[in-house]
């Protein structure tokens, strides 16, 4: 990423592109966006990575987190396109990212928290987090896909949230 930021190195960017473009594209499809639109959005995300590479700060976040936030913001814009409000959502989120006073101690703290969360949650719970918060599937859809009752999905997700809360302080 440094090579992209400092030297505008196109080969370095092509590596980032090759790794992330298929994953970002999959993210949009998982979120219920049709293939052609997903490809357009993927282009917007990776173009932003190239054009705004100077905004990325490796002390603040992992590259995957930064790219996730860009993709998520594009998703919000996409779903709001049909609404009448001209909302400055992306600006606000960019502001929050830059405003965030993150030092390395906190970064380590966050890493430890995530490690503990990962150790505490079993595979099915992790899949449920992914389906609920990453793919933004409804509880009903999660129930259908995992072939378990809706009530069970609701109580398990509540249980996961309560459990995670113990590690997030």
């Amino acid at each position, binding site marked *: 990423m440094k090579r992209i930021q400092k030297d505008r190195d*196109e080969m370095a960017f092509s590596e980032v592109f090759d790794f992330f*473009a298929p994953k970002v594209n999959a993210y949009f499809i998982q979120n219920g966006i049709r293939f052609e639109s997903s490809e357009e959005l993927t282009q917007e995300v990776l173009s932003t990575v190239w054009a705004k590479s100077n905004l990325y700060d490796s002390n603040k976040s992992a590259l995957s987190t930064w790219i996730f936030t860009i993709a998520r*913001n594009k998703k919000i814009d996409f779903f709001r396109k049909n609404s009448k*409000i001209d909302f400055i959502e992306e600006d*606000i989120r960019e502001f929050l990212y830059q405003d965030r*006073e993150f030092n390395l101690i906190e970064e380590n703290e966050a890493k430890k928290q*995530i490690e503990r*969360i990962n150790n505490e949650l079993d595979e099915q719970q992790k899949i449920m987090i992914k389906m609920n918060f*990453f793919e933004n599937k409804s509880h009903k859809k999660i129930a259908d896909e995992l072939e378990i009752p809706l009530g069970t999905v609701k109580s398990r997700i509540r249980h996961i949230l*309560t459990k995670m809360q113990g590690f997030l302080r």
Partner: protein
Amino acid sequence: MNGTVVKNQLIFDFASGILGPAKSLFASTYLQLNSNASKIGSTFEKILGENLMDNENINPKNLKYSDCINSANIKSTSNIKDPVTSFFGNLNNLKWKQVYKGFKEYTAQIDDIDELKLIKMDPGVSVPLHSHGGKEYILVLEGSFCDEYGVYSKGDIQINDQKIKHTPIASRDTGCVCLSITEKDVIFFGKYGSFLNLFTFIKSFFKSK
């Protein structure tokens, strides 16, 4: 569900990008003012970032990396101040509506199912005992208030549901300015209760027209 779980749920939903515009603005202000909430938010974003890292691959068909380098339609970064100011502008210049003496509100024009409001209470002013038809989220922007459950200062959030009845009182020194989200209208009790309920009823009647 206890209050902390509901707060975390709000942060998680914000990180996932599934909130409507009103709640989204509310949550971003919460993250900006409350460093603990901000930490939880970035930890959760990190978890979602790891999900992206490990995500399956679906290759785009017609997209090459060079398309992204040559793409011109990326808008430049704006320098906004903070979520509330960039949305409402200077709070002193708003056309506040007086609900009763010492209590003013300003309802945002935002196309959403949730109602987004600013509330300004003069020092020592209280809200009559009331409960809530739906969920209500209150975030303190300036000053503080207290009720039967505790003291809430800048960056603190209170989430009220149907079960909660309370009498908030603004700080005698500073008063308070809050951002609030209501999912449904509030139900009032006590001395002025029936009058205020009538007021909300009439208000909703005109709104639906």
